[in-house]
Structures are given as structure tokens and as C-alpha cells.
């Protein structure tokens, strides 16, 4: 839990707070591999501030020549369009190299944001990580 905001608990009238405390980034990317497939475990909140961390993770996959990428969103609790933009910026490049970015296990409220922008028409979004792995296997066998 983050600290209670100075404005909390003021039910009526006008409350003008001081600048809020600088908070540490509440987002992280973990790396795993299964065979040729690189799995990125996203955790926390993905917004315009933290999007650069996802971008760095995808760039690392590229520098490792890993083009079969699964983004596991099981622990991703929030996404804004800045986060979605990272997927947009890299999907064509990864596909041109014969790979894909598949998005798996999103929480319903996060999926809703992907859906709002029509991502299911452009991205392979699966209910589970296993399903995404098997789609890569099916495509390469």
C-alpha cells in the first residue's frame, strides 16, 4: 500500500495539497525462457512513466535475437495508452524477423483497455501462457 494522500479524509470543501511525494516506480519486468520462447512477466502499473521499462525489456529480447516473445500480464494491474504504444512500436519489427509478441493471461480490467483500442485484431491475445507457448510451437513445427 502506498501512503495515504494528504487530501484523503477531507469530505467537503476545497482541499489544496502540497506536491505529492516522489514515488518509486511500481512496475517491473521479469525474464524467463522456455525453449526458443522468451517470456516477460509484467508486474504493477504500466503508464507513461514506466513504459520505458517495457521498451527496454523488448529491446533486450531483440539484442538477444529472441523474436518469439510472450508478455504475461497475470500481475499487471493497470495499463494506459503509453503502455499499449510500446507493443505498437515493436510488433511489426518482431514479425518481420519471423517472430511475434503474444499477450497472455491479462486481468479482465486490463484486457478491457486493449480491447478498447482494437488490439485483439492486431495482436494474438490468449487466456493463458501455455496457450501462447503452444501457438508458437504449432507455428514452428
Amino acid at each position, binding site marked *: 500500500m502506498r501512503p495515504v494522500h494528504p487530501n484523503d479524509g477531507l469530505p467537503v470543501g476545497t482541499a489544496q495539497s502540497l506536491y505529492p511525494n516522489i514515488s518509486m516506480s511500481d512496475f517491473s519486468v521479469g525474464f524467463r525462457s522456455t525453449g526458443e520462447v522468451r517470456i516477460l512477466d509484467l508486474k504493477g502499473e504500466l503508464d507513461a*512513466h514506466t513504459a520505458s521499462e517495457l521498451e527496454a525489456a523488448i529491446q533486450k529480447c531483440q539484442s538477444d535475437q529472441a523474436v518469439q516473445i510472450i508478455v504475461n500480464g497475470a500481475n499487471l494491474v*493497470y495499463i*494506459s*495508452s503509453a503502455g499499449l504504444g510500446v507493443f*505498437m*512500436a515493436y510488433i511489426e519489427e518482431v514479425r518481420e524477423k519471423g517472430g511475434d509478441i503474444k499477450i497472455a493471461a491479462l486481468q479482465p480490467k486490463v484486457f478491457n483497455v486493449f480491447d*478498447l483500442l482494437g488490439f485483439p485484431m492486431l495482436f494474438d491475445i490468449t487466456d493463458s501462457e501455455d496457450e501462447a507457448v503452444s501457438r508458437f510451437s504449432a507455428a514452428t513445427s
Partner: protein
Amino acid sequence: MASIIHKLKIPSSTQFLEDVREFVTTHASEASFSESVVEQMKIAVDEACTNVIEHAYNNESNHSIDIAVIVNPDRLTVRIRDRGRKFDSQAYREPDLMAFAKNRKAGGFGVHIMRRLMDEVQFNSKGGLNETLLVKFRNAR
């Protein structure tokens, strides 16, 4: 019945987006909006503030943004004010996802998301002051 106004001032940096989301969540929840509607407001306000930081203030962090949550019996309004470059809503075009992916374009979805999630979205400018108004009616939809 008079309006209840809650105010927050943040520096124009994406590291404070998390505080804005928490601020809006707190006061929209207090005003008895449902969890799913609060989630929609949170995303819309994040998009509005991100646009101010990136476009109005061109990612310069030495400016400020004033956010107000205004609760009325029939609606909740979030007002975002800045003194940066004004947004030209006339020149705005709805994003084309496929074209964006082809061009590796990572941004440009914020206004689209705001309009999809809120009941009303207004952009006003006067005397160097810009204002984004995001409105959710209590009994809409």
C-alpha cells in the same frame, strides 16, 4: 446542493501520474461511483495528464498541472488545467491501429480513450490557460 471540490497540484512529470490516479480513485470512490466507472475515470485522467506533460509542456518537468475532482449530485467532473501549448481538437484525427503499427507509431491514442471512457470530454483554452474537462454522469448508460 453545492459542488464538492478536491484539488491536487502536480509537477509536469510522468512520475506523478500514479499520484493522480490514486487521487481520482479516492474521490470518485467516495462519491459512490462503481469500481468499473472509477477505473474508467482513472484511465481517462491519466491520459489527459500524460497529454499535458508530453504535448502541452513538451516533457519539460518544471511546470505544474492543476487537477480538480468536482462532485455534483448528478455527475463527477475532473478538470485538468495547464498553461502550456493548447491542444487543437479540430486537427485531431481518430487513430487507425493498423496504420500506426505499420509506421511503428507508439502514441496518439489518449484522446480516443478519453472519449470512449467518459460521457463528455471538452478542451477549452482562454488567455493562456488550457482546460480539459472529463465528465461522468451518475445515471448514464
